[in-house]
Structures are given as structure tokens and as C-alpha cells.
């Protein structure tokens, strides 16, 4: 079976046994008992501890580094600087602008300069103090507008000699004409602040070089395969001399999807010292590593007819990239390319520019590059609804794109449950009775969104599968599945087990999943772009069906019946027409092994060719799109400016919920994260480039007391190409939570919050302005 074949929606044996039903995770018991091992839980004999020296300047040339005193400190085994690891890298192969340690320049406060391995962390920290670095301080950029206008000095060298990281300008249809001829035009400025992932587990890596020179790296990464490639290039070591393993990981959210300095440093230090080396970043260092949500300043214009039908969208976006490229090329595309659903609009233009600044580098955070424009656009849609006096849900319905359609930028939409999402949140929230009628200070707001389920852009161009699965069968009945996918807590290894167990008629206790180990597992590209369930799920079906065919064929011969009579279910093989005839799966495997020799199978997935026929048309092209709608109910305290989010309803079209518990968990976690970043979080530096508070106290994460009631509503549109119809659930349900919150605040107190975050001072200022405006010219509603 070719990897691109569709597997269909049906259960392999009549009724689904496992898929679609609530299941425990296969690593649930290990996590419940505390026995799951995370990277920092691993210790090796003779292990050294490493620490990193970081830049105190936001932008400076390194004149000299003297490490001799650090080298001489007793207990220190290795000291490295940029000249030991000079090869540049970057997760996107076109923009390799990072080095493991600064070679000639530092570009933000916290940039890595040197690393020390010592017998313990205290000794390593003392050694860092002995390293002498002479800097020549350069002008630093903290404001992206300045970086756009000023070229001297440049943060990175490029051909243009400016500070632009990436610019993408695309238009589709006659945009200007649409704006000239449409009766309603709305323009507005919006902005999204920076936020960071703040996974509770800090980054950690451990390296060991064995007696044959084979390097093993254990790392808290969500991209084992890319780390493998980057290590090979930076260490100048053949990839077959490197093994990368991801142990249990304590959250990621996109914050562990770049290769990071510490991974190269421990590897190099292990090579130099001949001892295993571990580095665990402090919480403060995790804030510097960042790669979080890009701040964006966004100008949107919207043209529409009197009936609310959108005629054109025109966007200009300035993206603050921080100091390195990271995924920035993709971010810049995503900021425009992913806005073109769930609504149908005939014309569209976006002009997005990402600039470098001397701040911690931004990257992909849950809903990469598209949460910010989604916020702006969905608030603007609410303004349109207000202007035309149309119910905001009705307005969205009128513009809904629907299934089996094409977006204005040429993306293929297959399944689409957006209308159902709108209906579900409308009903569950009692929208019709609540809107404009909850009374003083209370309100509801709605928003919708769309997100990719993986992308056909494999980061480095190649024709090989994007996801692979290998299955090994033991005579005991145990089936071991090797999956390259990074389980980052979302449960991808469990998903693989559910699929294989369903296909082979096994119970879950017969399954073992070995994941994210480059020596043992086939390549998977990693846990990003919401690709894993769709791609790895399909690869697992592919492999399982090949194996099932062998087993069913052998049993049919053995029993001398037609193959259709053989059923594998709940750990047993049965003859459907003769209840007397059955055996355990272990026996069935043994019979098949006699016929076919040692049993096993591989499976893979690759995307079909997708995307618009223009430069960049494949970025944002996904084999399937997920859809979400949110209704948020708030109460605004007009005395204090405090916003109390009472309840959030999120309906999410995940295609098919392979395990509804895990899908609900992804929806709830997404909603929590979106609401929390809108109200409490702000990842920022001051005008000197100093982080404003790199701790979980100063960067406050929402607790149980700050998190609203969240109602997750699962919509199943049964995608024709997803595994049993499944699409993503991990990122989509974050997007529209934030604009729905802003729209709810408008319904509650009549202020339009177009700039995040919604802190009490912002709310109070907007309320004051509204009162002043109301006194001048009494009218309902006002602008912030």
C-alpha cells in the first residue's frame, strides 16, 4: 500500500474497540507513580555538570575571551567558547544564523558565550566567574520600528545590509478594487505582545561518548531528528556516529523545537572530557532561550457588503523576531498564509516583515505565527458585526467557507466542521439569551479560527516519508512499535498504541511503544505544526494493515476458511462463522511466523502535493485543517479594571477524536494558555534589553484560581485523509479564545481592546476614555 493512499474511516473489524473510546495513556501509570524518567532524572557514572556563561550586553562585539583561570580551577574538566563550535546552524536550513556559543558577537542579554564542565554545578558556576570577556558595546535595538528604519549597525549580516529577517508580500485577487467598490470598510491597528511557553520542565541535555566514539545525546527536545542533523553538522561528526534520544519531556509547546545551545555544548564537552556531561538550565535561562510568541503590530483593513459578506482583507504586519531567525521564515509566511479560513473572501493581501531586535529570539509557540493575526482579524470582524448590527455568530456563518473548498490563497480544504462548531458554542453558551443582555459589566464574545494539521513543507527539502512506523512482533503476543514521533505530553505514543492495537485486535497491555530514539526508530520530523496524529497515525495504520494481512492470511489457510471470516479482536483471533474456533493472538502470530518467517512491518506517510502555485504557496499548505469556535463569558470590574473570565466554551473540529479524553485535554490546555497569555503574561525586555522578570513569579502563570471554567465540545467532521478521520487538536483551540475574550469585553462594557495584554491598567484607561467620549457625544460603544 502506498503511503499516500487513504485508509478510510471505518474500523478494521466492524466496530471500533479502542479508537474513539476513553483510554488511559500508555505512560499514565509511570507518570502517576513518579517513575517516568525525564532528562534531568538520568545520571551516568562519572557524570560532569555544565553551566553556561551568558552575555550581559544586548549587542556587543567580543574583543577577547580569556578562559585560563577557569581552566585552572580544580574540578573543572572542560571549558569551551565559540571558536570550539563555530559552525552556524538554524532549524530552517536557509537561515543558519546561530552558533552554539557566540563567535564574534552577542545579540541579546543572555546570549551564550562560554560553557564549563566541572565535577558539580557549584564548581562550574565558580569557573564561569573566572572567565574574562572583553566586549565592545554596540547600539542595541529594542524597538522593532527602529530596526526596520535603521541599518547601522546590523544585528546579522545579510545581502541588503539591513535588519530585516524576512519579508513576505502576497496578494490574491483585485484587492484595491474590492476596497473601492465595497460599501463598508473598516480599518484598525492591533497589536499582540510577546509571551513564552514556560513549560514546567526546564531544558536539559545529557551527552555521553562511549569507547568507540559513539555520541549519545538525551535531550528535552520535540525535534529529535533535526537535533540529530544539527549535531552532525556542528560537531562535524558523521550522523551514524550520533544517537539522539528524547526521554519523557515536561512540556514543550514549541519551546523545545529548535536545536539549542546546551545540546551542542554537552556533546562537545563530553567529547573533550571523555566523561558524560549534563546541563540543566535554570528557570531564568529558559526565559532567555525563549523562542516564544512573536510580538506583532498589525494594521488590518476589511471590505464588506451591507449583508456582512467579506469582499477583501488587507494586512500589514511588523513582526519583532528578537535576535535570531529560528523558524522566522515560516512565522512570516504563517502570519498571512493561515488567515484564509474558516471564511470565504475573494481578495486578500498581506505584507509581513520580520525584523531582528536585540532581545531573546522568538519562535513557534502553540499556534505558530497565526494566533496574532487571528486576534486582530476576529476583533475586526466583531467591529463589522457591530457596525452592521448583525449577530457576530450570524456574521461568521454568512462568511463560512465550508467543506471541499479552496481558500483565496489556494489552500485545499477537505473536511470542515466550522458551522457545527459555531452552532455548538452558540447553544452550549446560551448565546442568544446572553448577548447584549447579561447586565452591567457582563458580556459574551465569539470568535472562530482555522489551523493546519501538519504541513507538506518538511523543513529540509526531500522526497522521503515525513513519518515512519516500524512494528516488531514477539511470539508471546507482545507487539513493539517503533515511532520516531516526539511524545511531548500530548500522548502521541499512546495514539500510536491505540491505532496498532485497533488494527491488530490487541489489548493495550500487549503493546510497547519505543519512541524518539534515532538509533531505534524510523524518522519522524518532530512534534510541531500539529502534524503527529495525522501523519504518524496514518503511518501506523499503514504498517498495521500490512501486518494484519499476513496474520489473517495465515489463519485463513490454517483454518481453511475465507479471509473475511477471520477476525482479530481483544487479543484473540476468531472465526466469525464458527464460534468454537478461536485462539490467542500469541498463537495466531506463531502460525503466521511459520508461514512468513519473523514478523514485522513498516509503514509511512507523506503528504500529497499541496499548495498554491506561487513562491511560498506550499507554506501553510496542510493535508487537512482543523476548525474552532469559542464563546467567552466575562465580568469586568469597572472599579479595578480586573477581568474575570467566567466560562469559555470551545468547540473544536478535530476530525475524529481517537481518544476523547486526550482531545478534551488538548482543548482545555489550549484555552487556558490563550486566556492566560491575554490577561497575565508578558515576555518583555526593558529599554536596556534586560528581561523584565525571568521567573515564574514575575511572569505569572495562571493557577487553578485564575483559570476559568472550560467546556470542551468535540466536533467530528471525519476527514477523508486523516487516520480514521482525525485531524489536529493541540494548537487550533488556542487561537480564537483571545479575540473572543476581547469581543466579550466589548459586549460587557463597550470598550474595544485591540492591543494585548488586557491588564487592569489598560482596561481602566479604556473605560476612562469611553466615559469621556460618551460625555462628549453620547453613543453606544466606543474605541480604546
Amino acid at each position: 500500500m502506498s503511503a499516500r493512499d487513504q485508509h478510510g474511516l471505518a474500523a478494521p473489524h466492524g466496530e471500533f474497540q479502542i479508537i474513539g473510546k476513553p483510554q488511559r495513556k500508555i505512560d499514565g501509570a509511570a507518570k502517576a507513580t513518579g517513575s517516568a524518567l525525564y532528562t534531568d532524572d538520568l545520571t551516568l557514572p562519572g557524570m560532569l555538570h555544565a553551566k553556561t556563561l551568558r552575555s550581559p550586553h544586548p549587542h556587543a562585539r567580543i574583543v577577547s575571551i580569556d578562559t585560563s583561570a577557569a581552566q585552572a580551577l580544580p574540578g573543572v574538566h572542560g571549558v569551551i567558547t565559540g571558536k570550539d563550535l563555530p559552525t552556524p546552524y538554524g532549524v530552517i536550513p536557509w537561515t543558519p544564523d546561530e552558533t552554539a556559543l557566540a563567535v564574534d558577537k552577542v545579540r541579546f542579554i543572555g546570549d551564550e558565550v562560554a560553557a564549563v564542565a566541572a565535577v558539580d554545578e557549584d564548581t562550574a558556576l565558580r569557573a564561569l566567574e573566572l572567565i574574562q570577556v572583553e566586549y565592545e558595546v554596540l547600539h542595541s535595538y529594542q524597538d522593532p520600528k527602529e530596526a526596520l528604519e535603521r541599518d547601522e549597525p546590523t544585528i546579522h549580516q545579510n545581502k541588503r545590509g539591513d535588519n530585516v529577517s524576512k519579508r513576505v508580500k502576497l496578494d490574491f485577487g483585485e484587492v484595491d478594487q474590492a476596497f473601492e467598490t465595497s460599501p463598508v470598510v473598516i480599518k484598525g491597528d492591533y497589536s499582540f505582545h510577546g509571551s513564552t511557553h514556560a513549560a514546567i520542565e526546564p531544558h536539559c541535555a545529557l551527552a555521553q561518548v562511549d569507547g568507540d566514539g559513539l555520541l549519545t545525546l538525551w535531550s528535552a527536545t520535540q525535534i529529535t531528528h533535526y537535533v540529530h542533523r544539527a549535531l552532525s553538522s556542528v560537531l562535524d561528526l558523521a550522523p551514524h556516529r550520533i544517537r539522539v534520544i528524547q526521554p519523557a519531556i515536561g512540556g514543550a509547546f514549541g519551546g523545545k523545537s529548535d536545536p539549542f545551545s546546551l545540546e551542542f555544548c554537552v556533546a562537545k564537552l563530553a567529547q573533550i572530557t571523555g566523561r558524560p556531561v549534563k546541563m540543566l538550565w535554570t528557570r531564568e535561562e529558559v526565559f532567555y532561550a525563549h523562542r516564544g510568541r512573536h510580538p506583532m503590530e498589525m494594521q488590518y483593513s476589511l471590505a464588506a457588503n451591507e449583508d456582512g459578506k467579506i469582499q477583501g482583507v488587507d494586512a500589514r504586519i511588523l513582526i519583532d523576531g528578537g535576535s535570531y531567525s529560528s523558524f522566522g521564515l515560516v512565522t512570516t509566511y504563517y502570519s498571512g498564509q493561515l488567515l484564509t479560513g474558516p471564511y470565504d473572501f475573494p481578495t486578500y493581501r498581506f505584507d509581513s516583515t520580520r525584523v531582528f531586535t536585540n532581545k531573546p529570539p522568538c519562535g513557534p509557540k502553540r499556534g505558530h505565527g497565526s494566533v496574532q493575526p487571528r486576534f486582530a482579524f476576529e476583533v475586526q470582524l466583531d467591529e463589522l458585526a457591530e457596525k452592521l448590527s448583525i449577530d457576530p455568530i450570524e456574521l461568521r456563518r454568512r462568511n463560512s467557507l465550508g467543506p471541499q473548498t479552496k481558500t483565496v490563497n489556494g489552500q485545499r480544504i477537505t473536511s470542515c466542521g466550522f458551522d457545527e462548531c459555531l452552532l455548538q458554542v452558540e447553544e452550549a453558551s446560551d448565546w442568544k439569551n446572553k448577548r447584549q443582555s447579561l447586565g452591567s459589566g457582563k458580556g459574551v464574545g465569539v470568535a472562530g479560527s482555522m489551523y493546519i494539521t501538519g504541513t507538506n513543507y518538511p523543513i529540509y527539502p526531500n522526497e522521503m516519508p515525513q513519518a515512519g512506523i516500524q512494528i516488531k512482533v514477539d511470539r508471546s503476543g507482545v507487539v513493539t512499535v517503533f515511532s520516531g514521533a516526539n511524545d511531548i505530553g500530548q500522548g502521541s505514543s499512546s495514539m500510536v498504541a491505540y491505532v496498532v492495537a485497533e488494527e491488530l485486535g490487541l489489548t493495550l497491555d500487549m503493546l510497547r511503544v519505543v519512541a524518539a530514539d534515532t538509533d531505534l526508530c524510523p524518522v519522524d520530523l518532530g512534534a510541531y505544526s500539529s502534524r503527529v496524529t495525522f501523519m504518524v497515525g496514518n503511518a501506523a495504520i499503514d504498517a498495521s494493515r500490512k501486518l494484519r494481512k499476513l496474520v489473517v492470511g495465515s489463519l485463513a489457510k490454517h483454518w481453511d476458511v475465507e479471509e473475511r471470516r477471520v477476525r482479530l479482536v481483544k487479543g484473540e483471533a476468531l472465526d466469525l462463522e464458527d464460534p468454537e474456533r478461536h485462539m490467542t493472538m500469541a498463537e495466531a502470530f506463531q502460525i503466521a511466523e511459520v508461514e512468513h518467517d519473523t514478523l514485522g512491518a513498516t509503514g509511512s506517510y507523506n503528504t500529497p502535493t499541496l499548495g498554491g502555485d506561487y513562491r511560498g504557496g506550499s507554506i501553510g499548505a496542510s493535508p487537512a485543517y482543523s476548525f474552532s469556535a469559542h464563546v467567552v463569558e466575562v465580568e469586568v470590574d469597572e472599579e479595578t479594571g480586573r477581568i474575570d473570565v467566567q466560562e469559555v466554551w470551545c468547540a473544536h473540529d478535530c476530525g475524529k477524536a481517537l481518544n476523547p479524553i486526550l482531545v478534551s485535554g488538548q482543548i482545555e490546555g489550549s484555552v487556558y494558555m490563550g486566556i492566560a497569555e491575554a490577561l497575565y503574561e508578558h515576555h518583555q525586555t526593558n529599554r536596556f534589553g534586560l528581561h523584565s522578570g525571568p521567573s515564574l513569579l514575575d511572569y505569572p502563570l495562571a493557577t487553578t484560581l485564575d483559570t476559568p471554567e472550560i467546556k470542551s465540545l468535540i466536533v467530528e467532521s471525519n476527514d477523508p485523509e486523516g487516520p480514521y478521520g482525525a485531524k489536529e487538536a493541540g494548537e487550533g483551540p488556542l487561537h480564537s479564545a483571545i479575540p473572543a475574550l476581547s469581543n466579550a469585553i466589548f459586549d460587557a462594557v463597550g470598550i474595544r481592546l485591540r492591543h494585548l495584554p488586557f491588564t487592569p491598567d489598560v482596561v481602566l484607561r479604556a473605560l476612562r476614555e469611553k466615559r469621556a467620549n460618551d460625555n462628549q457625544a453620547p453613543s453606544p460603544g466606543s474605541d480604546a
Partner: protein
Amino acid sequence: MRVLQLEINGDAREVAAHDHWTLLEVLRYSLGLVGSKQGCDKGDCGSCTVLFDGKPVLSCLTLAASAVGHQVTTIEGLAPKPTGTLQPVLDPVQVAFNDCGALQCGFCQPGMMLSARALLNTNAEPSREEIHQALSGNLCRCTGYTQIVQAVETAVARIAQGDGASASNDGAAGHSPPDGGVPA
């Protein structure tokens, strides 16, 4: 450096520790009890929570020496001692967390489950508000807390029915308390 006599999960343990070492350092580095997690080392996240005589404390802010004289429970000691049957027996809190999907990345959860256990030690029928209060010192970045709160409520209901410790490993799960939790 001093020698400390500690009682950890019912075992008398003698460890040598630097004077400035925290209990978290002793647990993780000296005793190999790595189930207690370090999320911040500053008292902000709660992932290092352990119990002193049944009450939650942050082990990253607790000097190891001050654990002397207390019964310390870590996640490795949350499950009751095996009774000799081969079937593993877990605390109802652990079973419910597993059944309800609360264990996403799991990194916050040793601390979270111990805080939940501490609550149930003093309050057999906590309201949702009391659950929120009791868990408010434990940050979770994955779950949005919803399934965590469901798990605690499920554990409460199952304990009230005299059930909850059974950890059947057929994989099936759910969170309709108390016994509808595991569908056939």
C-alpha cells in the same frame, strides 16, 4: 556537611548533605528519588511539593536539615505499601489522575497529586472551590487544570464508595465517578 537522619516514605535514611542543600537536592541527588521535580528551584511552581507529616511543603525551599523529625512522603511513597498481591495498588488519587487524562507531560503531577492527597487527608468532601484553593500552589502548563480537578473529584467520589485503588491495566479509562469510570 552534616549527617541527617531522615524518614522518607517510611524508611529511615541516613544521608550526608551540605549545610545549604535543600530537601529537593537530597532527594534527587543523594537518595535517587527523582520523582520530585524541579521546575524553578525558587518556590514558584510547586513541582517539588512533598508532604511533611501529610502536609504539603516545597522541597526546593526547605533545607534538608529541617526535614529531620518529620515523616516525609514523596511521590514514590504515595501508593500504599504492596500487600503481597501481585497487582499493583495505587493511591486513589493516582488512579483517578490516570483515568481522567490529567497526566499530560506529567512533570507537575507528582507535586500536584501530593497536594491533592494532602487535601483529602484533612477534607474528605472538598468543594470545587476548596480543590482550587488546595492546588493553587501547583502550576500546570498542560491541562488547563480541568481534568486535574475532575480527577480529584473522581478520587473523592470513589473513596466515598470504598473504591478507587484498583489500577486495572486494560487501558480503558474515563471520568464519570465513581464506578462508571472504566467502561467495558
